[in-house]
């Protein structure tokens, strides 16, 4: 019953979304305020209806209602409650429902907090946002209905894929979707501005927090996915340049570019049409990502044919929104008059360079991702593009970015002198060079990766600290009183540096050992003495585990006792490896247990992973930086909080 109500609510939401897409738009065109006002209640209603529908589906999962095909295919009564709930979005239909729920949430948020927006702009934003809702609601209702019943309900379900039964992955999709869909807000603002024919500082002040929030969510989502891959897949890789990963990475790069170019629009009223284009492309790449993941087209052209209906539907959504927005852009971008003037060497130019580097690197990722498809379509060549390509073709852009970032961040607006900007950064540069050389000399292999990565990473960190120091007028007491936006900027840039250091040192210094270990016989890997103490069978809630007990000693001292496991999930007849990791500040000890050998020993793999944590610590710092910026007073004002602020169109900085 509740299920049918949920289905019905979804259909109602579809109707409301159509009204919200059409009526406020006509109202804004004709200047009818009554029609424009329809957007706000409709946005709330749409969100509540989809929310109810999502709750009904969640309830079916929680109560293990196997008369629903989706629950039967993805759940099981023995599954822990957390994974019953995360099972709602651990499948195609449910995840699309989560997707539209978030589209509606952002639309509703714009109507709740957007009271200070000009009414016409608000009506248009809500209308465009609802068009996205209409498209995806139609996609769900016509091709991917989660509320399909089974005539003969089975007694139990087929269980969720065991790899997905993991806390890291339970929260990975919601964050990723909040990021993807958050960019729809920037898109809606961009299209509304194109219809309106004007972009000003107030517009940018609105777009930035949405973009920043979306970028923060994307950062967290990508980091969670990468951390999951690190501990779950059993060899401690953290990034694979897989098409599905690239699908989330391209919007991240463009969102990063967008939030920087929106600063120029906000503070200097320049780069307007470029910012609009970026906003369209950032969401466009979110849609491309969805298309890649959902249609399976990148894996193989042939798997596209397995589900042509869904693939073609998303392709049509993609073509409709991106094509429509770009057509509008071509017609109206000329109306965006830039006002702010700036010199060749200035903060504005530095941000242009930032945008070029981020956009070109996103293009490299895109071409690399679709190249196998292009090659097969045009030359009938079946080839692969993988990590070796991306490492060579993508990394240089990040190195240039890291090299120029601290200098660009310190440049004054309008007109700068390069020598004057660089002078305060000399100590940071010297320190960074020292760190790089230290990393180069202490490593056994004299690794160039360690030199460059650790050097650039610490250049970013020291550069961020220098900026805080200079900004506070070189007075320690004032550092804590700096605006949160300054802190956010320094934290995010420093976080990028920390991630750089983590990736470089992990790549350069990782030690690996593969062997057959006998129980009770210690072996040594890179200075760590490791003993396989025992291996036993342990039952889990919905799996059986082969669990090893291994002790790690450093200089004779016991530092950790770890339990790597092999699990078998009987319902899906699927094994997983659960690596055991001793996390420390400067290294992880990573143990994996393999198969029993004929002579009574066990295959054991040991990795010493230096500075692995720094990769994710850096990601956390980057998102924290975004959050700090978001809580800056300026944005709280823009978000409708009623507080007085100094009134200046272009703050003097």
């Amino acid at each position, binding site marked *: 019953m509740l299920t049918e109500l949920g289905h019905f609510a979804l259909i109602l939401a579809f109707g409301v979304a159509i009204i919200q897409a059409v009526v406020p738009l006509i109202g804004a065109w004709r200047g009818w305020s009554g029609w424009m006002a329809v957007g706000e209640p409709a946005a709330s209603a749409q969100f509540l209806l989809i929310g109810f529908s999502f709750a009904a589906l969640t309830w079916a999962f929680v109560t293990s209602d196997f008369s629903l095909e989706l629950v039967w295919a993805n759940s099981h009564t023995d599954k822990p409650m957390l994974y019953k709930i995360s099972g709602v979005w651990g499948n195609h239909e449910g995840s699309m429902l989560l997707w539209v729920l978030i589209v509606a949430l952002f639309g509703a948020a714009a109507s709740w907090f957007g009271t200070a927006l000009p009414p016409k702009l608000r009506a248009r934003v809500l209308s465009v946002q609802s068009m996205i809702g209409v498209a995806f609601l139609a996609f769900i209702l016509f091709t991917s209905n989660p509320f399909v019943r089974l005539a003969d309900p089975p007694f139990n379900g087929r269980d969720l894929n065991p790899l997905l039964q993991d806390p890291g992955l339970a929260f990975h999709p919601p964050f990723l979707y909040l990021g993807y869909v958050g960019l729809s807000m920037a898109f809606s603002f961009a299209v509304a501005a194109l219809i309106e024919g004007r972009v000003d500082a107030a517009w940018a002040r609105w777009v930035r927090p949405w973009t920043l929030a979306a970028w923060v969510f994307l950062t967290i989502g990508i980091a969670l996915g990468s951390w999951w891959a690190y501990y779950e897949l059993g060899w401690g890789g953290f990034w694979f340049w897989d098409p599905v990963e690239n699908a989330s990475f391209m919007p991240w790069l463009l969102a990063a570019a967008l939030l920087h170019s929106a600063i120029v629009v906000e503070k200097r*009223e320049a780069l307007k049409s470029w910012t609009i284009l970026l906003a369209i492309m950032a969401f466009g790449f979110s849609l491309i990502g969805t298309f890649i993941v959902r249609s*399976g087209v990148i894996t193989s052209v042939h798997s596209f044919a397995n589900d042509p209906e869904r693939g073609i539907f998303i392709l049509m959504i993609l073509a409709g929104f991106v094509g429509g927005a770009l057509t509008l852009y071509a017609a109206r971008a000329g109306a965006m008059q830039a006002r702010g003037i700036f010199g060749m060497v200035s903060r504005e130019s530095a941000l242009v360079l930032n945008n070029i580097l981020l956009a070109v690197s996103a293009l490299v990722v895109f071409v690399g991702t679709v190249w196998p498809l292009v090659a097969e379509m045009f030359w009938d060549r079946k080839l692969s593009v993988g990590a070796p390509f991306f490492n060579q073709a993508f990394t240089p852009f990040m190195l240039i970015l890291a090299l120029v970032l601290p200098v660009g961040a310190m440049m004054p607006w309008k007109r700068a002198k390069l020598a004057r900007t660089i002078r305060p950064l000399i100590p940071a540069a010297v320190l960074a060079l020292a760190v790089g050389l230290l990393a180069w000399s202490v490593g056994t292999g004299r690794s160039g990766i360690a030199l460059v990565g650790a050097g650039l990473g610490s250049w970013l960190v020291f550069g961020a600290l220098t900026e805080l120091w200079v900004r506070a007028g070189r007075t320690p007491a004032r550092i804590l009183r700096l605006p949160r936006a300054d802190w956010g900027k320094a934290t995010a840039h420093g976080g990028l540096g920390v991630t750089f250091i983590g990736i470089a040192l992990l790549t350069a210094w990782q030690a690996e050992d593969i062997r057959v270990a006998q129980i009770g016989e210690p072996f040594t890997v890179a200075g760590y003495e490791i003993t396989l103490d025992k291996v036993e069978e342990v039952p889990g809630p919905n799996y059986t585990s082969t669990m090893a007990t291994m002790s790690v000693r450093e200089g004779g001292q016991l530092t950790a006792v770890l339990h790597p496991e092999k699990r078998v999930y009987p319902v899906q007849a699927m094994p997983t*490896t659960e690596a055991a990791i001793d996390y420390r500040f400067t290294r992880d000890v990573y143990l994996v247990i393999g198969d029993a050998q004929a002579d009574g020993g066990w295959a054991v793999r040991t990795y010493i992973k230096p500075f692995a944590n720094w990769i994710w610590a850096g990601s956390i710092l980057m998102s924290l930086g975004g959050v700090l910026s978001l809580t800056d007073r300026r944005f709280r004002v823009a978000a409708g909080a009623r507080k007085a602020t100094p009134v200046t169109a272009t703050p003097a900085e």
Partner: protein
Amino acid sequence: MLKRLTLCLALLATPLAAVQPDEVLSDPALEARAREISKVLRCPVCQGENIDESNAEVSRDLRVAVRERLLAGDTDSQVLDYIVTRYGEYVLFEPDRRGANLVLWLVGPAALVVALGGAFVFLRNRRRDEAAGPALSEAERARLEELLKE
């Protein structure tokens, strides 16, 4: 990432975990070369894993074949050629730099040069019409003030 794993694992009743102890060569230098080569070779039945990480049976065969060729004294590129002639271009994760693939390799540098050139021309032209008006018109400024006061 998920899909490829699911597929890869689903193909196997009992997986073999990546590189096995019995495959490892006794000569560490040769083994290190084998690992590097393995990272460029794609598991033909998985969704985008290299043979070094893959659990599939065919990846094991490929790993063993790579090591056999190395023991026979092949150079790295000879080993790769040997595998590619048998399994096709598809198993190579790093596409060659010939013919149409040049587009793939050069798109990044080319786009960077074009974008930097475009930005330079744009910025230079901007500076020529420095006689642009004030940042906001009076009406706009009043509206912004009104907004910020709320």
